């Protein structure tokens, strides 16, 4: 949280936020799966003004070699912001922030992927932020798990993620850029709705126990909603018609 100038109004008297949302309302979320040709799996996501592409390659030969694990695959995520994605041009290449985010996203995804199926390999996940407007790490993770499923990687479940926080003394769901900049707390979280397992969580700012409780309640509800959007994206990818697969003879043929 970069500061709390008291002269910036983030929530009006009627409880409506500056972008017209209620406290527990999410920005519009759109996901499309299978948007890239070369990658094994991919997803494009628009969440409010965030625009993100995620791609998955693998399981493939693990580089550098010394990171190979003879018992399982490793999940290597690289989160990157394009230079023009933010208001002041960001120098291309990784910085400390993006390296940290890459690490916690890799760890969250590693939990859901059945890594033991693919010894000595790497599953590479790339997240590119085309346009950033608060919440890119949770948006990136949300897109990445759709890309993993699109890549046919065996996994326990999809991973929806969202940020909750506090602005003008109120708990709000899915912070926008102004709330992120001038609000007083930010808590990004990823949770599997079915099991309630928390796979990513950070917090900065200042909240009471009661406020954290309320925030987590908002987050739980939102993750369920995001999860449905993720599944819908995958469903649309194949326009699942309940097709007639499965009766084919999979033996090969020689001329």
């Amino acid at each position, binding site marked *: 949280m970069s500061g709390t100038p008291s002269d910036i109004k983030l929530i009006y008297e009627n409880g409506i936020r500056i972008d017209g949302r209620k406290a527990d309302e999410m920005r519009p979320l759109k996901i499309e799966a299978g948007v890239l040709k070369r990658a094994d799996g991919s997803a494009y996501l628009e969440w409010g003004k965030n625009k993100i592409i995620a791609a998955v390659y693998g399981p493939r030969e693990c580089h550098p070699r010394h990171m190979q694990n003879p018992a399982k695959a490793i999940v290597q995520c690289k989160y990157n912001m394009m230079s023009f994605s933010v208001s002041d041009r960001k120098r291309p290449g990784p910085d400390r922030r993006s390296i940290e985010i890459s690490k916690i996203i890799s760890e969250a995804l590693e939990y859901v992927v059945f890594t033991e199926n693919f*010894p000595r390999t790497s599953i590479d996940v790339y997240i590119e932020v085309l346009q950033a407007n608060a919440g890119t790490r949770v948006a990136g993770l949300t897109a990445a798990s759709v890309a993993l*499923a699109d890549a046919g990687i*065996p*996994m326990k479940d999809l991973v929806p993620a969202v940020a909750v926080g506090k602005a003008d003394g109120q708990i709000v769901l899915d912070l926008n850029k102004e709330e992120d900049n001038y609000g007083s707390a930010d808590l990004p979280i990823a949770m599997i709705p079915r099991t309630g397992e928390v796979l990513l969580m950070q917090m900065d700012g200042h909240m009471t126990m009661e406020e954290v409780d309320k925030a987590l309640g908002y987050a739980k509800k939102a993750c369920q909603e995001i999860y449905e959007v993720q599944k819908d994206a995958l469903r649309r990818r*194949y326009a699942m018609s309940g*097709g007639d697969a*499965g009766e084919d003879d999979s*033996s*090969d*043929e020689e001329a």
Partner: protein
Amino acid sequence: MPGDLLDGDKLRPGAGTYVEDGKIYAAILGIKTIKSNYVNIIPMGGRYIPCVGDSVIGKVEDIGPSNWLIDINAPHPAPLHVNEVPWRVEFGDTARYMNVGDVILAKILMVDETMRFQVTMKDQGLRKLQDGQIVEISPSKVPRVIGKSGSMIQMIKGYTNCRIFVGQNGRIWLDGEVDNIMHAIKAIQMIEEDAHSFGLTERVKEYLEGVTQQTSPGSE
């Protein structure tokens, strides 16, 4: 879809599923099928993971004194030992038989628990491939290209007069008259794009009928 509960208490977990607290869930994106009490998910995508006995199309990517390293479109390359080829090769003489970039028809000989694979060329029909063309499709679409008891691929062969070999690893080799190769490739691409829709066989047939009638009289 990953995480979806697959109902039915009497079923047992099959491919593409996992069990948690006694319940079966899907682990991959795909279509649910039930076969002799096992619930399986037929994948919609994903990389090729070798199984012993699979026929594959491989590409030589490196040469050692007593083996070749074959790229089989899997997470790791597979060694092909000189004892596993149909020729007698002296130590250090490997490059005389096959070079980097050469394409072969091979079978998966061995897969171990750390995903080390070995391939062999010692079986009927396995050989070095020459001429023709290679196309690559998603390995999960291979069964569709082959069709029920080979019906789809037989149809393509019939209309185009091409020799075709479909590797389980998603690589397909075709040889024949140039126009016919192009038609066959187009048909295979149609199958890949539309793999899970109804009436696919009919549409592919229609396409092949159309193009082969145009070109067959007075073919170049």
